[in-house]
């Protein structure tokens, strides 16, 4: 391998610093003993302890977790079905329109999605709260699941399903015993992606929230406006850890599956 030049090393270091320095500072300051956020007072896990007594933050975290679980599961179900329809049912009428529309939430500014959902909920006279946030997050994250599952389905060898049917397996059972186990890694990583996206969404949640359904990002945002408290740093660190874990396991899962497949086709 070629030795990295000083230019490469510097640009890599600068790039990584640009991305991760703010996060590193936040993590470090979450272990700060001092009450003043900007002054270092030695190492301490004090704010993690205080966090346990901060009911407002804890209940917000609980709401966020529930929203993320519900919306990620709904988005995974809908997104997988969409991917199957797009890949499997050939050139049905309006397929092009449908498949490009699926990507709209990926590129649409969240403010616009949020506003239009708010208008919809108001027009339909839906009481805003937990379920409206969950629905909003499902709309956003469904397309991510579709993209992930779709790419796996496109690479899927159809003769596997034909072989199963040839051996006497009816279509639905073929899907459950052959197709589903083989695309499961994509479905799981789609779920994790949806979960993470829902976990840290502020914009959609603040548009579609109602009384009693404050998510963690909303709580953090409103508290920061009154000044950063050390507990916020602590809860943010936990949030980063959860998100990182989800992303890393999702990508590991996909990697492992790919390695297995490459071996299979070798």
């Amino acid at each position: 391998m070629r030795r990295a030049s000083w230019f490469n090393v510097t640009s890599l270091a600068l790039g990584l610093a640009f991305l991760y320095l703010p996060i590193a500072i936040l993590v470090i300051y979450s272990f700060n003993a001092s009450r003043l956020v900007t002054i270092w007072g030695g190492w301490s896990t004090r704010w993690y302890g205080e966090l346990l007594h901060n009911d407002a933050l804890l209940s917000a975290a609980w709401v966020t977790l529930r929203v993320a679980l519900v919306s990620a599961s709904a988005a995974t179900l809908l997104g997988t079905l969409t991917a199957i329809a797009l890949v499997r049912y050939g050139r049905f009428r309006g397929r092009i329109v449908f498949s490009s529309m699926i990507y709209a939430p990926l590129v649409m500014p969240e403010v616009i999605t949020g506003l239009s959902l708010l208008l919809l909920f108001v027009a339909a006279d839906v009481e805003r709260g937990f379920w409206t946030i969950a629905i909003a997050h499902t709309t956003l994250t469904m397309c991510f699941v579709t993209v992930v599952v779709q790419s796996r389905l496109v690479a899927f060898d159809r003769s596997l399903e034909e072989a199963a049917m040839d051996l006497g397996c009816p279509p639905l059972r073929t899907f459950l015993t052959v197709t589903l186990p083989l695309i499961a890694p994509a479905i799981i990583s789609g779920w994790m992606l949806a979960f993470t996206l829902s976990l840290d969404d502020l914009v959609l949640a603040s548009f579609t929230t109602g009384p009693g359904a404050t998510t963690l990002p909303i709580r953090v945002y409103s508290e920061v406006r009154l000044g950063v408290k050390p507990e916020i740093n602590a809860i943010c660190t936990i949030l980063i850890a959860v998100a990182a874990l989800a992303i890393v396991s999702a990508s590991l899962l996909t990697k492992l599956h790919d390695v297995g497949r490459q071996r299979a086709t070798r």
Partner: protein
Amino acid sequence: MGTGVQIDPAARPLVRFEGVSKSYSGVAAVDALSLDIVEGEFFALLGPSGCGKTTLLRMLAGFETPDTGRILLDGQDISAVPPYRRPVNMMFQSYALFPHLNVARNVAFGLQQEGLPRAEIDARVQEMLALMRLQGYGDRKPHQLSGGQRQRVALARSLVKRPRVLLLDEPMAALDKKLRQETQFELMRLRERLGLTFVIVTHDQEEAMTVAHRLGVMNHGALIQVGTPAEIYEQPDSRWVADFIGDVNLIEGQVMSSSTDATLVASAAGDIRAAASRTSPGDNVWVAIRPEKLHIAAGGGDGLAGEVIAIGYLGDLSHYQVRTDGGPVLKVAVANVTRLSERPIGLHQRVTLTWAAASALVLTR
């Protein structure tokens, strides 16, 4: 014919295609095709890619439905029966082994669908693995096997249900030449031992000639000729088949006289004595002579005179290109039974070509 088994094409057919057509967006893949396949037969569908042979096989498996016509199995119309209810199993070109199941569970898959008791499934899987020389591989995943082993697993999986007909879609395309030849003979032994009917699709004529009792040569969705390998090779009934199967010299000419024991054809290369045919003087015909049926001798004499313009040495055979004095270039294949140094014919030498009249066929289409 490899196994020496005589197949009577007039016996009651196990599989019958009756005027079957299938087209994709207006283009006919299979065109009003009729064919009978007899019980216990090893039948090969042979043709260039895109000739419709795979479509025909997939219709028999149930993955495609014919637009018109019927497919009968044991006298029953199965055209509308879905693939999972047909007593027909297929071995796929890609093998299509389930990557998430081990070898034993791949083979057991078809039996599980029948809801057989566990003990019987296990016994039959073990028996099949033994037959395919795969004992001890039951716990391996497909990606841990070699190409040849994977092929045997695929074969075991498609045979374990004891299908009425086993369909083989280019089963040896992924194997190297040596393994392919071994597998061909193994397939023939297997068919004989199990007494099943095999239908193989291949574009490899050597493979088709080796394994099959009868072959059907296909082109543009139609069967051009059906017969034993010897019939197809020795008695092709069209220029296309003569040219597709093996090497051939095709010489265009006009019938001078036609009798019960020979046909005399005038061509640019000279007058040709060919086998008897149903032609009359004045007909435009083609004479087909296989390169190995031509005898080459130095010097002059009776026959077509010409000059050697190229020699290809293949080890067991030598190929000569001879330009006849009339113009056309003919290919001659000579078995190298003597040592190279003892062979008398060299480049640019004058030679005479002779043949037995019966080995020169007169083709009208």
